[in-house]
C-alpha cells in the first residue's frame, strides 16, 4: 500500500522518460552530464563531511558528556533545521558579498579594495558546501543522538579498562556502533542537498537537479528531464545499496542482558567550555546569524509594524499541511517497518525499500510525476459522477490541497521509515522472544517494549518531517489549490522579484512554527543519564 503510493510518481516519471528524446540525450551526455556529475559529487562529499563532523561530534559530546550549558544546547542544536537552504544562501551571500555587512564593517578600518580581496567568495563550490552544511547538520545530529544516548555502557567501559583513551572509545566503539543512525542522517543530508535548486543555482553550482530543471524549462524536454531524473534515481539506489553492503554483518543491537546506559562524563573547566563552544559555533552560524539578519530586515523594512494579515493565513496553511503530512508519514512509516519486523519476506523488503525512494526525487520532479496519477483519480471521479448522471464534483484531490499533503508524505516518508528502522535494529529479537515466552501478544510487545524504546527515533522523525514540510517549495507551488499560499510559497514570491528580504517575516514565521515542536520534543527526547 505504502509502496504503491510512493511508486506512483516514480512509475509516472519512468513513463515520461520512455518518450524518445534522442537529440536531447546525446547533448546531455556530451555537454551536461560529466560536469554535473563532478559538481554533484563534490557538493555531496563536502556537505556530507561537514554535516557528519558537526552532527556526530555534537551528538557525541551532548549525549555522553555533561558540561555547563548542555541544557541550553539540547534546545539549540536542532534549530538550523528551520532555516531553508535557499534562505541561508541569500543571507550569507548578502552578509559576505562586497558591500555587505561584513565588508562595510571591515571597511571602517581597512581600505575598501583590500577588504574585497580577502572576503571569501560564497558564490562558489566551497561557499555552497559551507552554507548548506551548516543548516543541514541537524539531520545527522538528531539521528546520531538517538543512538549515542542509548548506547550501552559496557562497551565503552570494557574499552577503557583495556587502556583506550576517551578519544579512542569515540572512534573505535561509539562511532561504529552508531553507524546505522549516522548512515540515515547522512542519507537525509545527501538527499536534501541533491534536491536543492534554489541555493545551488544562486551560488553558481551546477548539480544534476539544476540540469534537470534547465533541460525541462529551456529545452522544453520533459522526456529529457525525466531521463535525467531516472539517472539520478539510479545513483541514489546505488548509494543506498553500497551503504547496505557496507553494513552487512554489523551487529548493533544492545546486549540483551545489560541495557544499562552509559553514564555521562562530567567535563569541567576549560574542557567543559571548549565542548560548549564547539557545539555553540555551528548553531550560531547555522541559526542565530540568519535569524538575526531576518529580524533586522523585518524591523528595518517595517514588516512587523505593517504586519501583512495574509501571512497569518499562510502560516495556518503551512502548519495544517505539515501536521497532516507528518502524522500520515509517521503512521505509514511505522506500519511498513512493523510489517517487515513481524513477517520479513522479499515482498515486504521490496515495499520497505520502495517507500524510501520518495526522498530521492527532487520536489519538482515528484510533483510532475504526481500530477498524472492524482489527476487521473480526480478525473475518474468526475467521469463516474457524469456516468451516474450526478453533477460533477470538480477536482477533489488537487482542489482541496490533498495533493500537496500526498506529495509531502511521499517525499518525506523515508525519514520515519529510516529512523524507525534504525531504531528497531537496536532492539534485540530476544526481547520479542522473551515477551512472547511471558505470554504477551504482538500488540502488547509493541506497546510495552517497542514503542518506549522507539520514542526518540519517532520524535526525531516527527521534527524532521514537520519542519521539512514547512520548508518544501517546488511541489507546494505546483500542486496547491487556487488562492492558497504557504509561508514557503510566500517567501518565493518575494525572492523571485529579487527582494527576498521582504519575505524575512515569512521566513521568521517558518522558524517560529518549527521552534515550537522542536523545543517541545527535545524536552522528551533527552533520557536520564545512566547511574555512574
Amino acid at each position: 500500500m505504502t509502496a504503491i503510493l510512493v511508486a506512483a510518481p516514480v512509475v509516472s516519471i519512468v513513463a515520461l522518460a520512455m518518450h524518445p528524446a534522442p537529440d536531447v540525450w546525446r547533448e546531455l551526455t556530451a555537454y551536461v552530464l560529466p560536469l554535473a556529475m563532478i559538481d554533484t559529487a563534490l557538493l555531496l562529499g563536502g556537505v556530507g563531511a561537514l554535516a557528519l563532523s558537526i552532527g556526530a561530534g555534537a551528538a557525541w559530546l551532548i549525549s555522553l558528556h555533561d558540561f555547563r550549558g548542555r541544557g541550553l544546547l539540547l534546545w539549540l542544536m536542532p534549530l538550523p533545521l528551520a532555516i531553508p537552504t535557499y534562505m541561508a544562501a541569500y543571507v550569507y551571500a548578502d552578509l559576505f558579498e562586497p558591500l555587505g555587512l561584513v565588508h562595510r564593517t571591515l571597511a571602517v578600518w581597512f581600505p575598501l579594495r583590500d577588504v574585497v580581496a580577502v572576503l571569501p567568495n560564497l558564490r562558489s563550490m566551497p561557499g555552497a558546501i559551507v552554507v548548506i552544511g551548516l543548516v543541514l547538520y541537524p539531520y545527522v545530529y538528531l539521528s546520531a543522538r538517538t543512538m549515542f544516548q542509548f548506547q550501552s555502557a559496557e562497551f565503552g567501559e570494557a574499552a577503557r579498562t583495556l587502556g583506550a583513551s576517551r578519544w579512542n572509545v569515540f572512534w573505535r566503539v561509539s562511532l561504529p556502533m552508531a553507524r546505522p543512525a549516522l548512515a540515515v542522517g547522512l542519507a537525509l543530508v545527501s538527499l536534501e542537498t541533491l534536491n536543492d535548486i534554489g541555493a545551488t543555482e544562486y551560488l553558481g553550482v551546477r548539480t544534476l537537479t539544476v540540469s534537470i530543471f534547465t533541460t525541462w524549462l529551456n529545452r522544453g524536454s520533459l522526456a529529457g528531464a525525466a531521463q535525467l531524473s531516472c539517472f539520478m534515481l539510479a545513483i541514489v539506489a546505488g548509494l543506498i545499496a553500497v551503504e547496505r553492503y557496507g553494513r552487512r554483518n554489523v551487529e548493533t543491537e544492545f546486549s540483551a542482558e545489560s541495557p544499562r546506559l552509559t553514564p555521562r562524563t562530567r567535563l569541567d573547566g576549560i574542557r567543559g567550555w571548549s565542548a560548549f563552544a564547539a557545539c555553540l559555533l555551528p548553531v550560531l552560524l547555522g541559526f542565530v546569524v540568519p535569524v538575526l539578519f531576518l529580524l533586522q530586515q523585518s524591523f528595518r523594512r517595517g514588516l512587523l509594524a505593517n504586519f501583512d494579515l495574509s501571512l497569518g493565513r499562510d502560516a495556518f496553511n503551512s502548519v495544517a499541511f505539515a501536521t497532516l503530512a507528518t502524522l500520515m508519514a509517521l503512521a505509514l512509516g511505522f506500519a511498513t517497518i512493523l510489517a517487515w519486523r513481524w513477517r520479513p519476506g522479499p515482498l515486504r523488503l521490496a515495499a520497505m525499500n520502495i517507500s524510501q525512494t520518495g526522498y530521492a526525487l527532487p520536489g519538482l520532479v515528484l510533483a510532475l510525476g504526481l500530477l498524472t496519477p492524482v489527476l487521473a483519480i480526480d478525473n475518474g471521479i468526475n467521469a463516474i459522477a457524469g456516468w451516474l448522471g450526478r453533477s460533477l464534483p470538480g477536482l477533489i484531490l488537487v482542489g482541496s490541497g490533498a495533493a500537496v499533503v500526498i506529495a509531502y508524505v511521499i517525499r518525506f516518508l523515508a525519514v520515519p521509515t529510516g529512523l524507525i528502522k534504525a531504531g528497531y535494529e537496536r532492539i534485540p529479537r530476544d526481547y520479542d522472544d522473551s515477551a512472547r515466552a511471558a505470554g504477551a501478544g504482538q500488540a502488547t510487545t509493541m506497546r510495552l517494549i517497542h514503542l518506549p524504546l522507539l520514542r526518540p527515533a519517532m520524535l526525531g522523525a516527527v521534527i524532521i518531517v514537520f519542519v521539512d514540510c514547512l520548508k518544501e517549495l517546488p511541489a507546494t507551488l505546483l500542486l496547491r489549490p487556487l488562492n492558497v499560499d504557504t509561508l514557503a510559497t510566500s517567501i518565493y514570491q518575494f525572492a523571485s522579484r529579487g527582494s527576498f528580504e521582504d519575505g524575512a517575516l515569512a521566513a521568521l514565521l517558518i522558524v517560529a512554527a518549527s521552534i515550537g515542536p522542536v523545543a517541545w520534543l527535545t524536552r522528551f527526547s533527552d533520557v536520564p543519564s545512566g547511574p555512574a
Partner: protein
Amino acid sequence: MIKFRVFAATAVLLGLASPAITTASAENGEVNVYTYRETKLVQPLFNAFTADSGIKVNVVSASSGLEQRIKAEGANSPADVLLTVDIGRIDEAVAAGVTQPIRSETIDKVVPAQYRDPDGHWAGISMRARVIYASKDRVKQDAITYEEMADPKWKGKICIRSGQHIYNNGLFAAYVARYGEAKAEEWLRGLKANLAQKPSGGDREAARDVAAGKCDIGIGNTYYWALMMNNDPEKKPWAEATRVILPTFQGGGTHVNLSGVLLAKHAPNRANGVKLIEWLIGEKAQQIYADSNYEYPIRVGVAINPTIAGYGKLNADSLPISKIAANRKAAATLVDKVGFDN
C-alpha cells in the same frame, strides 16, 4: 452544472485550508487564473478588475509546470487564463495543447502584431528589456551593442547570472535567431571569455558586483534596476553606482521579452477569461502594470514610468517573438556546449 463544479471546488477548498475564500461566486461569477507572475504582484491588478467588473479572481501561482498541470487536469481543469513571464513559457503552453485562440478585436487593435500569436493563442501584456548596468566611473561608452559584448576589450569585466536562466536564454535565443548557431556559439565563447567570475547570483547581484568593482558591466533586466532605485533603500547604492544602457543589435534594436496571457482550452468561465484579458491590456491596467513593476506597457500611449523612461528611448528589436521562442533549445544547448556556466 459548470457553475456547480466551481462552487463545489470552492467549498472543498474552504473546508481544508483557506479562510480567505469567500463563496463570492456572485452574479457576475468568477475567473480562475494560473500564473507564473507572483500573486503579490498581480493581486492589485485583480483587485482593480474585480472592482470594475464584479468578477472574482481566483489565483494559483507557480515557478514552473503550470501547463503540465492544466494538461493533466484535462477537461475538468478549472483554469481559465494563464499568465506567463517569459516567451519560453508561452511557447510551452501552446506546444502542450492547453490553449485556445482568444479571438478578440480589442487585442488585435491594441497589441502590436509582433507581440501576439498570428493564430490568436497568446498575446503580450508587458515588456522588459535585457540591458547593461554600466559602472558610472569606469565605463565611458554611452552605446554598446550585444555583438560588442564579446569584444576582448571587455575581458574580465562582465558579470552575469547563469546562462541557463530564462532571461539569458531569451537573449541568447534572439542571437541565434539573428545570426545562426555557428556565429552565436562564437559570440558566446567571446562573452564567456570576458566574464569576471563564474555566472551566479541574480540580476541584482550583477549591479552589486559592478558597484563593488568586481566588474564594469553587469547584465540585467530593466525593472530590477528601478526596483533597487525606488523600492529598496539598502540596494539603492548598487543602482546608484551604475547607469542603465539600452544595448542594441547591430542594425537592430534592444532585446525584449514578454509577459503574456493565454486562454485555457477548457476554460469553464471563458467569457470572463476574455473579459479579464481585454481588461489587462486596457489603459488602467497597463498603467498599474507599468508603475508597480516598472515594465514597458504593451499598449501604445500609456505613460512609461519615469525611472524607466530615464534609460532613454526604447527601440525594441523587430525580430518576431515567435522566432526567438523557436531558438530557445538551440541556445540552451550552446550554453552547455561552450561551458558558459562552468
